[in-house]
């Protein structure tokens, strides 16, 4: 039985750690430390290795949820974590200075994973900052030749994160959950 995993990526402060905690069946493993670099201006602690959570299926299988560290200097981790993944959940925070540039950056960084599997984008902090609207985020995807789900997400809400993952899976097979079980 292979290792099944879904990757959560995005810039610092986008809500990756919170999102994994919202849907995980186990207490998430968080490798946060007190931020000492420019991240400290955004939040008190930040992920330095990865976040980890899991979805336990009735079949006994486990789907691992990995959150990548947001800083670029950890980008060597991104490729390692992405190997064999089912898909990518990309979280972008509208409260950061340039959310669309963040989106472009992460689309490029995870291009091989996106092209070979699936993508769903969650835009966080839209309750605080409405701009740029979802339409602008979608336009960035279209400019990259991608048409994937883009939802407004509150990373604390299990329902939001769950819908994002459901859309991630449906983007590949619209029949999931309909008709007879396979």
């Amino acid at each position, binding site marked *: 039985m292979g290792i099944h995993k879904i990757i959560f990526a995005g810039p610092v402060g986008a809500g990756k750690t919170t999102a994994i905690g919202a849907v995980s069946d186990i207490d998430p493993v968080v490798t946060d430390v007190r931020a000492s670099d420019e991240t400290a201006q955004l939040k008190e602690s930040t992920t330095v290795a990865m976040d980890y959570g899991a979805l336990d*299926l009735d079949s006994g299988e486990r789907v691992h949820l990995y959150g990548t560290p947001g800083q670029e200097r950890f980008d060597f981790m991104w490729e390692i974590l992405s190997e064999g993944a089912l898909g990518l959940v990309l979280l972008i925070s509208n409260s950061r200075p340039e959310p669309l540039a963040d989106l472009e950056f992460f689309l490029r960084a995870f291009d091989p994973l996106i092209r070979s599997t699936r993508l769903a984008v969650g835009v966080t902090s839209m309750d605080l900052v*409405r701009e740029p609207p979802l339409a602008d985020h979608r336009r960035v995807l279209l400019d990259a030749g991608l048409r994937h789900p883009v*939802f407004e997400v509150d990373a604390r809400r299990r329902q939001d994160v769950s819908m994002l993952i459901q859309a991630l899976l449906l983007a590949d097979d619209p029949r999931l959950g309909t008709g007879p079980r396979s």
Partner: protein
Amino acid sequence: MGIAVVGMGDRQINLLEMILSGPGGSSCAIAPDDRAQACIVDLDSYGAQEELGRQRRLHPRRPVLLTGLRRPPDTVVGDDLFVPKPIRVEVLVSAVTQLRGRVRAATGRGEAGAVVPSRRRAPAPPLPAPGTLPAPAMADYDPDRYLQGLVTRAGREALVRRRAVHLEGPWPSITLLPGCGTAIVTGGASTLDAFAAQYGLPDHARVTFTPAPLFSPNSPDAVSLESLVWRLAVQASAGRVPVGTPVDRPVALSDWPNFTRLAPTRWAMNIAALWTQEPSTLEETAAGLGISLREVCTFYSAVRAVGLVAEATRVVPAGQPQPAEVGPRRGLLRRVFDKLRVA
């Protein structure tokens, strides 16, 4: 002959019915839009120009009788009949007779369709019974005869005027702030569900544009305008499609709806996934996904209401949507999906 009436309140409709059934000789009666052969439009009503344009698009050969205080030169065109206000009974009867003659000529029939029994208000088209199997023919509905249409038109006009707009009627207070894409519904959008499902707009509905809205977009009753229109469309549709839907054409979506902030409809995400990948007709969608056509029609009505339906170009012949992966991996995806959907 059935006549659709646009832009008239209950009192005007009552008067019109009395004229048609009395001096008019009962040869014509008021009918729902989908059963009418001609229409009368009150040009002085709110949104009349837009409604007239819609009538012309949907029914390009349907004879039109216009009424108003004055005769706008760019509005009364071609064979349109015009009856000035105040309306004189004999002028109206004469115009309706001409209207009937034009319908006869257009249909080539001695009698211009069946006379619809006179009623105070045209009845709503029947709703398909919940839980029934897909109907062989899709039922349609006219969004403009529901709260959905009123909110959509008011929002559009408010955007042009750069004003907020208040909609007052039997429903809880509705304020639209189109500039920031927000609506404020007293008590929340769900309080409108029952009103949204009702056919026909009340006579006393008031639409007021104002430069100074009474509410802030940060009100606890604020919802996005998109989610409000979506919700109203779901309620009005009830398994039907908007009148004029080209049901034999494949449907595509320009984007996924923002599902986390919209009222859910059954199988909505499955249908969205299909329509963003492979344009399909409504019936193909229901058959391909193995779901009820009613659910597909409701979802179509909602995505159309919020402007997400795109021009569809089919690359390959439609068929069953093909999963990208088969075998154990697909089974795994299904199990993950089922777990999340249930949780």
